[in-house]
Every structure is written in structure tokens, then in C-alpha cells.
């Protein structure tokens, strides 16, 4: 396949000999501090920011409380098919059993390499009304969730269904993205996808009128596991 790598790089090298790049320095000075946050303040911030974006947050003090909140949310949405991360990936013990006991089925996200099979599977997954995930972290300054992919943590759970319920431990709150990266410097080596999600999908492409739930979920509920 055509590749102009050497041509492009050598032109760059030639250009850099004469380049006029105002304020270019040999290094960018290290940042003083990415910041440390106090949990209660971060929690308050996170909830305020998320709600400004049109998301909702619920505080749970125990596994039982969290399960109760999730089941209530599921009843409100309706439908029995879910896209969910595996139990091991979620901070709430017993959720899987509770979902099963209440008659919910969880679709296994496993897309085939074969084109036709892949499309068929996607069509099936499309039926799910709710996706359930366990966030790796929350960023307080923007109300964002950090979602890391893996075999047990499909990306589509936070993307395909119209409602996304995320479980987040309050001990996993960070003041901002910089402090998150400082805590997880090798995070991109661990998985092919890290998504920060700040509230429901939105657009303002028609006359700047805000619309939620364009292609991603219209509803984002975060259950804060505070124990």
C-alpha cells in the first residue's frame, strides 16, 4: 500500500531548519500539581456538574440500596433486555443475581469478525433498553465518567441503549482529568478504549436548539456507591 512516510518526514525535517514557531521551547515546564480533591467536595461538584448536563445521580450507602435504585430505574424504563458489564466489573455485589431474579436478561456482547454475523448480532443488541456499566472513575470538575473497555466491559453498553446506568464508587472520584491521568499513567496500555462520558448525548445542530439523545443515550443515571 502506498506510504509517503519518508517523503513527509524528510520535508518536515527540512522545514524545521527554517521554521518560525513563536514561543517554541525545548521542553514544556512540568505542571506544578494536577490537584488533590477532598471527597465530599468532589462528590458535590460531580453531582452538580452531571445534573447541569441533564444526567441524574443517586447516592447509595450499601449494596442493597444500590441494587434497589437500579431495579427502580429499570422498572421506570421498561423492557427486559439489558446490555451490561460483567458482575466482576461492577462495584455492587449481588447485582447480577438481583437482575436475574427480577427477570432481566443480559445480552452477551461478542461481535464476530464475519461481516454478516457481526451485523446480525448488532441488530439483536439494539433491542436492549438499558445499558449498565461500572465506571473506573469520575471527574468532579466536569461530571464525567471514565469507562475502560475490556472483554468484560463492552463499549456498546454505554452507547447503544437509550438509557445508561453507571455505577461509580465515590472513592474513585478525581478532581479533573489531569489528576486521573496522574493516578493512571499507563491506562491506555490496559485497553483499546477509554471513554470519558459527560452526561447524555446531545446536539444543537438544528438552529442551536439543544436536543438530548441523538446517537448515544438520552438518559444517563449515575448510582454513586458511597461506602
Amino acid at each position, binding site marked *: *500500500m502506498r506510504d*509517503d*512516510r519518508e517523503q*513527509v518526514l524528510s520535508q*518536515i*525535517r*527540512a*522545514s*524545521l*531548519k*527554517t521554521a*518560525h*514557531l*513563536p514561543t517554541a*521551547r*525545548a521542553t*514544556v*515546564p512540568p*505542571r506544578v500539581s494536577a490537584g488533590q480533591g477532598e471527597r465530599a467536595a468532589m462528590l458535590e461538584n460531580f453531582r452538580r*456538574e452531571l445534573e447541569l448536563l441533564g444526567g441524574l445521580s443517586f447516592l447509595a450507602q450499601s449494596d442493597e440500596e444500590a441494587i434497589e435504585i437500579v431495579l427502580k430505574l429499570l422498572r421506570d424504563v421498561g423492557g427486559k433486555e439489558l446490555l451490561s458489564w460483567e458482575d466482576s466489573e461492577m462495584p455492587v455485589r449481588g447485582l447480577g443475581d438481583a437482575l436475574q431474579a427480577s427477570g432481566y436478561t443480559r445480552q452477551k*456482547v*461478542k*461481535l464476530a*469478525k464475519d461481516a454478516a454475523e457481526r*451485523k446480525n448480532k*448488532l*441488530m439483536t443488541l*439494539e433491542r436492549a433498553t438499558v445499558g449498565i456499566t461500572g465506571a473506573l472513575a469520575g471527574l468532579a470538575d*466536569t461530571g*464525567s465518567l471514565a469507562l475502560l*473497555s*475490556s*472483554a468484560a466491559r463492552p*463499549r*456498546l453498553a454505554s452507547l447503544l441503549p437509550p438509557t445508561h446506568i453507571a455505577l461509580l464508587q465515590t472513592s474513585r472520584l478525581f478532581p*479533573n*482529568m489531569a489528576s486521573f*491521568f496522574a493516578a493512571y*499513567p499507563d491506562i*491506555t*496500555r490496559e*485497553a*483499546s*478504549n477509554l*471513554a*470519558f462520558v*459527560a*452526561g447524555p*448525548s*446531545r*446536539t444543537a*445542530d*438544528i438552529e442551536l*436548539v439543544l*436536543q438530548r*439523545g*441523538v*446517537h*448515544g*443515550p438520552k438518559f444517563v443515571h449515575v448510582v454513586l456507591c458511597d461506602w
Partner: protein
Amino acid sequence: MHTPNVTFHERVDKALRDQILHTALDRATGRFQTMRLSALASLEDADAVRDRARLIRAHTLSRLDAYLEQFATNVEKAGGHVHFAADASALNEIVNEIARKHDVKTVVKGKSMISEEAELNRALESNDIRVVETDLGEYIIQLAGETPSHIVGPAIHKTKEQIGELLHEKISIPYTDDPAQMTAAARAKLRREFLEADMGISGVNFGIAETGTICLVENEGNGRLTTTAPRVHVALMGIERIVPNLDDLSVMLQVLARSATGQKITVYTNLITGPRRNGEGDGPDELHIILLDNGRSRVLGTEVAEILYCIRCGACLNACPVYREIGGHAYGSVYTGPVGAVLTPALGGIAAWNDLPQASSLCGACREVCPVRIDIPRMLLVERDQATRAGKMAWWLRLGLHLYSFTVTRPALFHAATTFSRWGSRLAAAPTNGWIKRLPPPLIGWTRSRDFPAFAKKSFREQFEASHKK
């Protein structure tokens, strides 16, 4: 770069007469500006963050070759493929070849300016590949057969009634002018496209050298779907869009959305490192990242290299009084507004794009709002000088400025000329109360909307000397 066949002045004329366009532009640019200000205010020390963002861009470009090599190595380490495309045709060739290899019939696309720059859709369609834009604004203009008019809001030039008609006609839904219903209809239509597409093509906001990661930001979720559902993901990026590491990325992200739409952050910030791995259930099986040069490496060696600091937020468009009057299409180029006025001639040659850097009052509003403080007016001036050297200045203006300079550098001649003009102008303005209603060509443009005063009876020098006789 493709040049339009209608002149700049004709396009401007059309835009200035378009009332609907004016209303839309006023609303959009006004809103974006207000939101930007409040979003920046939410940053603890916005000025320091902007300074840092600028340092990062400048530093990265000063070692661009090394960072690109590091980036490519790390993408490949993560299992992705990297391609360098020297120009648009190389890019189109590479994408078509990937498509052929995977027997691709349908492509879903996230927003990508690189794709517009290379006119990729046309190149794919000529190989019988169906291309579907999925960003709502891009989808609308694709249905209308138009091009984006704004980096951030591609369809801001259309009213909801126009969009309602368009959707009714093109995707056969009952007419509505309700944005909620139109959005829902587009969601349903495009959802099927996502699930059935063979390939997803996206843009890239930043490539992170240290990790081989690409970062895509978006609000709708179409970017995530494009890069998750189809078997193959092709990501298009300009060679300049590298940052060294994740910490640097976090700085850029602090200013990008704030400057673009006035959000603290976009709804989705997608970090992709290679194709799916370790038994992951979704995500593409193949990831191809295509780095487009198309003149950038050459621009890097010029006086206007600073334009490569740009992170495509569109803040300069919203702040620009010229953009606000004429909108994006009048520029006739992929990149519009102040950044486009510098970048387009830099990439496509001043000879073909001389009008763009001329279309500025040099008011400096763009420099003021740029998150990485690019001195756009300086570069517009550099390009005007280049245009003159390339023989693009009108002969009368060239001669006029020559004569002016000749006169100005000879005070006695200058005084004679101003005295002559004084009597001339006073004579011309005498019947109309001291104001000239119509200047002769080539100055006639002035008096189309403005009167011009006659010269003063006594010059300043004469008055000063009369009052300061020793």
C-alpha cells in the same frame, strides 16, 4: 485544494443579500461567544491554561518529526496501522484500498475536516461505496448536497424549516419543523446505518505520541458508534495534530470545548489505542490511522507556521466580524473564517486564494479569542505581502502605493500633494456642505455607504506653526 468557479466578490455579494443566513449567523456566533466566555470563566486560571496550551503546540511542532515517529511506533505496537499520505489523492487511494480489501459497501463517517479537505466522499463514491455522514449537522448538509459552513456547526446556515423540508424530501418523513422530531427521525435512520456499515471513518482531534492513542471529541455519540460498531475503523488526521503525552492532552481538552461550544468538556472524549484486543466483544478488528500532509510540512518551514498550532475550535470564526457578515461558504474553501483565511492560501497557494487574507479589517478579535493565542492578523499581513510579491495586487493599487510611498518619504512633495488635495477636495465638497458624496474610481467603494470629508482649510502643521511662532 479545489478552487471554486465563482469569484470571491460574487460569493460575498450573495451572502450579504441572504437575510436567512444573516439571522442564522448572528444567532450562532452570538451564542457561541457568550457560552465561550462563561466556560472560560469556569477555569481557575484560564490565561495560564491558554499559555500552557500554546507552549505545548509550539514545542510539539518544533520536534514534529520525532513525535510523529514516536506516535507511529506506538500505534503499531498497539496493533494499529499507520499510513502517511503526502497529499489528498494519496489519502483517498489508501482509504479506497482498505475498503477494497475488506469488501466495504457502506461507510459511516464521523465529522472530519481532513475528509472534506481531501474530498474523500467523492473518491469513495466513485468506487461505488455508499458514504453516510452521521454527525447530525453533517448529515443535513450531505442530504442538501452542500459543504459545512462552520467548523463546529456545519449546518448553522440552515433554518429549521429548511431542514424540515429537506428531511421530508430526502428521507421521506412527514414535514415537521420541530428539532426534537427531526433529531429523532435522523437517529432512527442513522442507527441502522451504524449497525450495517462495514467501515467507520472518523477524524482525530489529537494523536498522543507517548501512547499511540488517538483522541476524538464529540457530543452526539456518532463518533463513538462510528469507531465501535463497524469492523474497520479508519481515522484521518493532519500531521500537525500531535501532543506529546496524556497530561498535555488534558490541557488541550481544557480549552478545546470551552472555546468551541462553551462546554467545559464534550459529552464524549474517546481515547482509542489500537483495535479491539484480548477478546474484547466490540470495537473494530482493524484500525488504520492516516496522517495527511497535503502541504503542512512545507508550511512548517514558512513565516506562517504558527497557523499549525490551530486546534480547530472555531472560536475565531465566531469572533470575526467579517465571518459574521458573509458566513463560511463565501470563503469558498474547506477552512473558513480567520483561520481559513490564513490556512487556505498557505496550503493551496496564494495565487489561487489571494482574496481570503485581504478580507479582513485586521481588528484582532480572532487573536484575542484563540485558545492557543495564534497571531492570525500577523499572518494575514504576511500573506498580503506574499500576494504582492506574487504579482496579485491590482496594478492601480500597486502604483498608487508606490506613488504614495514616494510622496510620503519626501516631505516637500507630501505638503504639495496634500495642499493640492485640499483644494481639490474642498472644491468637490463645496456644493454638498463640506462632504464628498462620490469619490472617483478606484476609491468609489468608500462612498457607496459613507461620505468623505473635505480636507481641513489649514493643515495641522500650518496651525501648529502659526501658534508656536518663536
